[in-house]
């Protein structure tokens, strides 16, 4: 009898530990996303999959985001240790160098993540990351300073506006946030016949890159003297947005979701206008999550990945953070489809991560950024 009691007690003590795995989820995105996780996504997941718990670790800000943690996990992968990380809300699986080929990242498929089947093809760049929310970069401007008929609708009009209003436009450093990066990408597209299909994950070559970038740097260097304060590029999406909020500039490229949230919070005034270029939209992109293959709680991490692709969460992407779903609109509630009928695109134009991206950023630092401070 005593033995049975002890046995039961042990079972009771141990059972929660066995049935409740906790995944360590690292979120290095802007605060609108990590807040959305704490308040919506994680509680929803907890209800749907009670056996898995989620510990969200916020790494955004000046600390290098998820990079140090990924490096740590990759080192653990090589030595066979527990990486203490199960899920990265947003990461580029082309980093760290060589990790993808060595099998560090989980390869997503319809088998391990059933809902992967419903992801739109345009969002899939590689099977090693999970696109789950899209957003686009557009121009945010101050209606009190930019008259209705001056609002640019094409790249040329934008360039003309910037030159006509020196000091009133700025974009952020391309490696520090998508709003600046995608503005630079748009210049690269402009210089290459506005054809995003020229850039794919597999066709990177250093010579080709320097040739294609050269024309884009000409465009951006031509703009530099007309940018805010002799081209003082801010270090991130938020600092760029705050320059607009402070009235230091009157137009910036901004993430649609972040700009809308800023207007709702009163950070940007009601008089803020949003406009997209019509000749070729400023590129956007899908935020893609990654899972390290050595994750200690791989099962729960995969369940979470599956869960963010459910119509339930995808609806929340549209409603709560003003993003695009990564699954087809047809799978979302019909009233939502009707409401967003004008903005529905099944595709957000993109620029590949990996080599193209890091070469572009580095080349920008070498060729565009130095032309800034010579006058100081």
């Amino acid at each position, binding site marked *: 009898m005593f033995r049975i009691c002890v046995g039961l007690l042990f079972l009771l003590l141990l059972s929660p530990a066995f049935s409740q795995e906790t995944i*360590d989820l*690292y979120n290095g995105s*802007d*605060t*609108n996303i*990590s807040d959305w996780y704490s308040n919506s996504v994680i509680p929803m997941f907890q209800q749907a999959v009670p056996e898995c718990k989620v*510990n969200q*670790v*916020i*790494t*955004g*800000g*000046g*600390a290098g985001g998820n990079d*140090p*943690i990924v*490096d*740590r996990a990759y*080192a*653990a992968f090589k*030595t066979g*240790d*527990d*990486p*203490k*990380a199960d899920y990265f809300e947003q990461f580029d699986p082309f980093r760290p160098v060589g990790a993808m080929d060595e099998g560090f990242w989980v390869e997503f498929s319809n088998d391990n993540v059933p809902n992967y089947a419903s992801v739109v093809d345009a969002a899939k760049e590689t099977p090693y990351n999970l696109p789950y929310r899209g957003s686009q970069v557009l121009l945010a401007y101050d209606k009190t300073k930019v008259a209705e008929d001056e609002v640019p609708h094409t790249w040329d009009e934008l360039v003309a506006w910037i030159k006509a209003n020196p000091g009133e436009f700025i974009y952020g450093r391309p490696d520090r946030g998508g709003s600046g990066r995608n503005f630079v990408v748009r210049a690269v597209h402009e210089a290459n016949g506005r054809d995003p299909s020229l850039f794919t994950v597999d066709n990177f070559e250093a010579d080709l890159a320097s040739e294609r970038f050269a024309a884009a740097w000409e465009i951006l260097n031509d703009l530099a003297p007309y940018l805010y304060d002799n081209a003082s590029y801010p270090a*991130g999406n*938020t*600092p760029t*947005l*705050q320059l607009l*909020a*402070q*009235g*230091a500039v009157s137009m910036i490229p901004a993430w649609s979701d*972040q700009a809308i*949230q*800023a207007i709702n*919070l*009163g*950070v940007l*005034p009601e008089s803020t206008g949003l406009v997209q270029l019509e000749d070729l939209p400023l590129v956007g992109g899908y935020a893609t999550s990654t899972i390290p293959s050595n994750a200690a709680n791989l099962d729960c991490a995969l369940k979470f990945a599956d869960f963010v692709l459910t119509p339930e969460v995808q609806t929340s992407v549209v409603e709560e953070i003003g993003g695009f779903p990564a699954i087809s609109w047809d799978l979302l509630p019909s009233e939502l489809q009707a409401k967003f009928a004008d903005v529905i695109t099944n595709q957000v134009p993109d620029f590949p991560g990996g080599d193209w991206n890091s070469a572009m950023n580095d080349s920008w630092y070498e060729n565009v950024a130095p032309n800034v401070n010579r006058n100081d």
Partner: protein
Amino acid sequence: MTFLRRLAKDPFGIVIFIALFLFIIGPMISVVLWAFSIQWRYPSLLPTEWGLKFWAQTFKRADILQALPLTLMISFIVTIVSAIICLPAAYAFARIKFRGSQFFLLSFLATNAFPRFGLYITIAVIFLKLNLISTILGVVLIQLVNTLLFMIWIPTAAFKGVDKSLEEAALDVGASRFRVFWQITLPQVIPAISAALLLTFVGTFYETQGAILIGLPGIRTMPVLMLSLINNQLVVQYGAILSLTLWIPSLILLLFARRVLSGKTLAAGFGV
């Protein structure tokens, strides 16, 4: 009137004071103003709308309230452990002649110059092997390394400065070595050691790089939590409120420190 006359006696002091005040306190004033504003649009000199609206919102975050006691505890542990291992070493450096003492003492300064960020990843790998990642012990160890320089150098100088004739006199009249240390040596070095403890505590409390790489996901200290909130927030007020909050422990220490630091003991530690 006497007040003015006293001021007039020291014109140079007033100039220095005002200039320093603008430079040092100016930035802090703008943080305080932001923390108590609801709206502040350019070109208004002061916030256009005052209020505490954002304070309540900031402190709704449970993680901040959990992190504060944890961070204080870790900083206390680091400071105490650092004192336990470094003060005897400082005593040895100051009072015992041994081969290579100069080399060992300077090695603490030299290694301090190696850029940390590359090292932390290598250390993280070692800690992964030892199962120290995401534990309090791991965070304490990594932060301890950063405290060695101050905790050894400042007390070493203080021990060197102790008046030995007093000690010898006490020994001559038959006092035990321990008693001499406790009653004569220690009181003379207390100010410098307090200063070193203070610097160690403040430095540890605000350390982020090591705390991120070794502490996450289990151990989240205040500065790690706030780093993202301060510079990544759309709402400027959140950052201002968090900055003020994060600064409270410092403010308390500053009040304590006035007595310690006004003695010129601290600087001697850097070998002046």
